């Protein structure tokens, strides 16, 4: 039910503008690859191991890509793995060990003809894709057997730093009624240019995203889902310098959701924009195939830019994120745009305006599994009051039929959620979602009221903003702080040195097989 009486033409124009302004960036993307993408290719083909040294575990995929010079890499790591396979006819693991030991020097190999490479990689590549496809179907099967939650899905985070403790807390949350468990990453993992390895028990404000940790949590949740006859979804972060690799891990370990945004890393982690744009594309090519739903991070904008005045930034970014995702072959049902209930609670009619924004996003992106983030910025140490803020947030989410509700915590301004914080939070959401179950269907907003006018104003502002961005160029507008009031220089930030231009004969079998027809 579209309730805001929006100007549909304006919505269409916004989409077209976004498509147009993304186009030059997409062109750039198409001509480039990154070290992370190349490592992802290796990971897809099963190279998920790591080597232990005095600094801990370092992934085999990194060791190999680190060994390549840029000229070679510009042909794609697959070219050289193909070459090695052609010459030594051994499984990837074996080749990798020898390469790392220096027994095989890829630089010495001749570049084989394209057809030969394609042929020798045929089997590992299709194995890789089969694994992903199998997971997707398996998840579809499990989901279809379990009741679809009425009202927004209840999404909670666990963040103890210790995967085994996380499992306990995830189980408790699911038993209380949570539908989605997101394992928050350790602070600053996004700045690591490699993925940590193995089961980990020490993280800061979160737990490292590792393949083993993914496996442990997935398996615990699958067991629980079976016991409860209710499928529990799992979420992690395909974000930061290893965005593509984590997308691969998510696909391989059968995650349901991945936080993944075309611009978040730029704005909030000071990662270079070119690196991020190129990486997000490949990560989305993988998640598209894996049937994973991505969740974008526009909610974060409202923590640095005032939520009342800047909602058009969120909406503009939604249109942009959507276009990037579509370019990577994602269906609308996979694009979980993120927004948030972040207005200053001291504003008169803040709840009204929050509902207006939530409804606006829902109206414009009606097929998207929208993710609604709770108040965070305006929370303080009064846990009783924070609990009330979350109650209105829950009601807003339920009234406007958001797909996913990230449950707020009374202790948001204090610490990572204690077990009891999450418990209280879920209990509150269970009540509100049930108590207001049909509320959204039962009310209409006055056609020209404060609420509807607010929504329309924001749409107008978004339209103008997109026009400006298109004129200026997306990269340039980021340089000028158009999003979240975080200006970022085109060649600044981390990870630019991991970006390279593709050679004409660049080869990436997964991009070839999975990439959209663009």
């Amino acid at each position, binding site marked *: 039910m579209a309730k805001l009486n929006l100007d549909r033409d304006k919505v269409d124009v916004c989409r077209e503008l976004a498509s147009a302004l993304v186009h030059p960036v997409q062109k750039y993307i198409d001509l480039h690859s990154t070290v992370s993408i190349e490592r992802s290719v290796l990971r897809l083909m099963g190279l998920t191991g790591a080597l232990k040294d005095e600094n801990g575990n370092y992934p085999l995929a990194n060791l190999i890509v680190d060994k390549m010079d840029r000229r070679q890499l510009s042909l794609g790591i697959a070219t050289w793995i193909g070459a090695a396979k052609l010459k030594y006819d051994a499984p990837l693991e074996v080749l990798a060990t020898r390469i790392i030991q220096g027994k095989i020097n890829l630089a010495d190999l001749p570049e084989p003809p394209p057809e030969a490479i394609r042929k020798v990689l045929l089997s590992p590549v299709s194995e890789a894709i089969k694994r992903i496809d199998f997971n997707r179907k398996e998840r579809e099967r499990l989901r279809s057997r379990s009741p679809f939650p009425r009202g927004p899905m209840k999404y909670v985070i666990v963040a103890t730093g210790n995967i085994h403790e996380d499992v306990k807390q995830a189980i408790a949350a699911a038993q209380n009624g949570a539908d989605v468990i997101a394992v928050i990453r350790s602070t600053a993992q996004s700045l690591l240019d490699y993925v940590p390895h193995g089961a980990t028990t020490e993280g800061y404000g979160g737990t490292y995203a590792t393949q083993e940790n993914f496996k442990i949590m997935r398996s615990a949740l699958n067991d629980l889902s079976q016991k409860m006859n209710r499928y529990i979804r799992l979420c992690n972060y395909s974000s930061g310098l290893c965005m593509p690799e984590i997308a691969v891990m998510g696909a391989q370990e059968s995650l349901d959701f991945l936080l993944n945004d075309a611009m978040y890393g730029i704005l909030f982690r000071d990662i270079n924009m070119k690196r991020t744009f190129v990486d997000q594309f490949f990560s989305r090519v993988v998640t598209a195939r894996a049937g994973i739903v991505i969740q974008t991070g526009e909610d974060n904008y409202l923590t640095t830019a005032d939520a009342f005045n800047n909602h058009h930034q969120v909406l503009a970014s939604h249109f942009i994120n959507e276009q990037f995702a579509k370019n990577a072959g994602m269906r609308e049902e996979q694009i979980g745009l993120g927004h948030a209930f972040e207005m200053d609670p001291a504003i008169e009619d803040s709840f009204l305006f929050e509902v207006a924004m939530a409804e606006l996003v829902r109206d414009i992106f009606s097929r998207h599994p929208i993710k609604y983030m709770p108040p965070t910025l305006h929370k303080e*140490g009064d*846990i009783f009051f924070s609990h009330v803020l979350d109650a209105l947030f829950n009601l807003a989410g339920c009234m406007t039929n958001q797909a996913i509700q990230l449950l707020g915590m009374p202790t948001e301004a204090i*610490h990572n*959620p*204690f077990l009891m914080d999450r418990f209280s939070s879920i*209990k509150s959401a269970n009540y509100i979602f049930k108590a207001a179950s049909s509320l959204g269907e039962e009310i209409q907003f006055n056609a020209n009221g404060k609420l509807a006018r607010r929504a329309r104003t924001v749409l107008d502002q978004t339209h103008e903003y997109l026009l400006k961005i298109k004129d200026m160029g997306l990269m340039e507008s980021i340089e000028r702080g158009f999003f979240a009031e975080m200006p970022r220089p085109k060649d600044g930030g981390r990870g630019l040195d991991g970006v390279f231009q593709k050679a004409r004969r660049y080869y990436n079998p997964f991009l070839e097989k999975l990439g959209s027809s663009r």
Partner: protein
Amino acid sequence: MGFFHKKEEANLEHHEPVITAYGDQMNDGMVQMSFTLPTTCGLESKEAAKLFVEKMGFEKVMVTHMEAISDNFTFFVVYGKTNQHIDIREIKVVRPEHPVFSFDEINEVIEKKIGRKLVVVGACIGSDAHTVGIDAIFNMKGFRHDWGFERYPWLSAYNLRAQVAVEDLVQKVVALNADAVLISRVVTQRDEHIIELKKFLDLLKNTSGVSPHLIKICGGPRISFEDAISWGYDAGFGPGTKPSEVASFIVHEFLKRAGKN
């Protein structure tokens, strides 16, 4: 909804026996507190709150919120880490030992083993006007899908409801030759309920004509089985009690006393 009050025995098998509070990891001892101090709001008061909680034996005390309630009072939210532990193996709880029967089972047992209706009299005593609790046990419709005493064919149930003087209740018990008396107390301010409940027992002792087998039960949201026993009652029932639990107790106790168990 998660509204329930467990009375079952806690299953402690799979747990470490010596425990402390759990915030987000084992033995972190994290406890949340809130309180008011009778002082103005300011840095000194915040420090006072911290020292106050430290004096209670907490470590890593974090005053996460301070706000003026008025010129004379300040509100605090505090987190702290305790070093206290409890060995749950050492906890002994007094609880009713009888099994809980269903409506049908209870009627059947009374019919077969006793062969006459049991007479039960209930009331909320003193100035306490709360009838909802005693009604939950007596009224036809019962409580949480568990039928009330008035629907039991093998019980003669008399509910005097609320504001009943203990003197009147004793008289009624005698007049009806009751097998069980059931007293409710909901208002517990200044332990008034304990005084009233004990007064009833005293009066009972000094009254002739009371059946020596009379089963004496009390109940209410702040009453535990253990407390009731300590006051001289045969049983006490707290929040969430269902009629069948109470009826089961009565039948069980009656049979025990008659040596028919």
